[in-house]
């Protein structure tokens, strides 16, 4: 059964919609800048979305209280949903994913509380992950199957996978899938405490990489089966043809040096899509810029592709690491690569990693046929997911 992708939506540091993001990718315009919102965090490079909460609320015309995570999610979800309507005969659901949920507001409440100031209780009611998704679902009129996943950096890829499986097993006909995360003091301090936050612009897959830059954003895709398309008349943009989730079981935060979980995820996804490694046109890598991930991922790529590594790149030097949203944002980039036969560049690369010697694509490539795109998302706790997209 074919899993058709008929809608895509995105908001990130490099654009408020698909078109703007695409333009930035083409012109090598990164959205990572010195922070403007997090006043205590001077000289911190972040991939912030260029709209304030006030502006987002106004743009979306939604009720408060609502967290920034829901707001960002709603922008991307609306774009992917487009002009779709709810029909009795089309079983529809939504699966979002997030790691921060409403923490952007909760941390404000908690700070006021422990500093002995007045704390507005409405700040805390948007905390839980599920609530974040409910706000998006309510706005779009989707009810029934409403779910949220949370597996750190692989979250959105897993949401996409779960949506596909529900369609494949005939539980749903149409499902909006994706992920969101907004910037919070909590996560910024968290990654700094792990000493994997680069105070310079991130250099994915470079020997001198020092860590990640955080970003925020949301990505959503609309998946439909044939039965749904017959009714909606939506035009498929690409096909989701393979997926897999595997565990590293190595360490609470670090990926295994032999790339075990990552290798398994890539291999299983290729097997599911009935593809040989040589058939992959482009790999959109997880490539966070941390010493650990980029090495582990490089080893996995070599395990699978041996000496014939396809063009690969990480787009995180554009958007920053958007945590739970990254799998969906990069899924949208993968669909664009298929639609327009393009390969996006890996910014800031000069020196290959000593142990693996791999060189990502550093130019914006427009002269290659792109038929199959493989996208990796590898999360904390060793949660590794791979998605494979196919040109229609």
């Amino acid at each position, binding site marked *: 059964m074919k899993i058709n992708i008929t809608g895509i939506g995105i908001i990130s540091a490099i654009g408020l919609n698909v078109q703007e993001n695409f333009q930035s990718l083409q012109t090598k315009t990164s959205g990572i800048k010195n922070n403007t919102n997090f006043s205590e965090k001077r000289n911190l490079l972040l991939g912030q979305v260029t709209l304030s909460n006030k502006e987002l609320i106004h743009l979306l015309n939604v009720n408060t209280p609502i967290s920034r995570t829901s707001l960002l999610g709603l922008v991307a979800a609306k774009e992917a949903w487009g002009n779709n309507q709810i029909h009795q005969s089309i079983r529809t659901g939504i699966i979002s994913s997030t790691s921060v949920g409403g923490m952007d507001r909760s941390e404000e409440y908690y700070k006021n509380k422990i500093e002995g100031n007045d704390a507005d209780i409405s700040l805390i009611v948007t905390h839980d992950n599920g609530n974040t998704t409910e706000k998006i679902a309510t706005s779009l009129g989707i009810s029934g199957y409403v779910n949220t996943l949370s597996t750190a950096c692989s979250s959105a890829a897993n949401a996409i996978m779960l949506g596909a499986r529900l369609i494949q097993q005939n539980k749903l006909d149409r499902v909006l899938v994706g992920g969101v995360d907004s910037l919070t003091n909590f996560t910024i301090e968290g990654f700094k*405490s*792990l*000493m994997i936050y680069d105070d310079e612009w991130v250099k994915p897959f470079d020997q001198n990489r020092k860590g990640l830059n955080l970003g925020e954003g949301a990505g959503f895709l609309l998946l439909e089966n044939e039965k749904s398309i017959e009714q909606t008349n939506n035009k498929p943009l690409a096909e989701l043809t393979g997926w897999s989730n595997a565990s590293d079981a190595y*360490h*609470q*935060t*670090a990926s295994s040096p032999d790339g075990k979980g990552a290798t398994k995820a890539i291999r299983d996804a290729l097997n599911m899509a009935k593809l040989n490694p040589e058939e992959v046109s482009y790999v959109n890598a997880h490539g966070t810029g941390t010493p650990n991930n980029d090495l582990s991922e490089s080893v996995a790529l070599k395990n699978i592709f041996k000496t014939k590594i396809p063009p690969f790149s990480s787009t995180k030097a554009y958007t920053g690491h958007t945590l739970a949203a990254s799998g969906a944002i990069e899924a949208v980039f993968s669909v664009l690569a298929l639609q327009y036969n393009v390969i996006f560049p890996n910014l800031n690369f000069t020196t290959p990693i000593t142990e693996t010697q791999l060189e990502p694509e550093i130019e914006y490539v427009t002269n290659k046929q792109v038929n199959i795109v493989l996208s990796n998302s590898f999360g904390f706790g060793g949660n590794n997911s791979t998605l494979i997209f196919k040109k229609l």
Partner: protein
Amino acid sequence: MDNIKLQLKEQIIKQLNLENVSVDDISDDMPLFGEGLGLDSIDALELIVLMENNYNIKLLNPEEGKEVFQSINSMAAYISKHQQ
């Protein structure tokens, strides 16, 4: 120097929540990582915090910490040399 070593052991037990370990269980030259006390890379980060907060010594990353954190002896020696 001996004062520092005893202090260090107490601080390590506290910071790393080593519930069943007493200062007598940690010998001065025992490897702290791998075999010996069996600390891991998360503990290494915690020790970096300990060095900064208790001794005002800044280690830039876990790599720098590898040599320093080999044993109580090496930690105490480093602290004596670098304490602000």
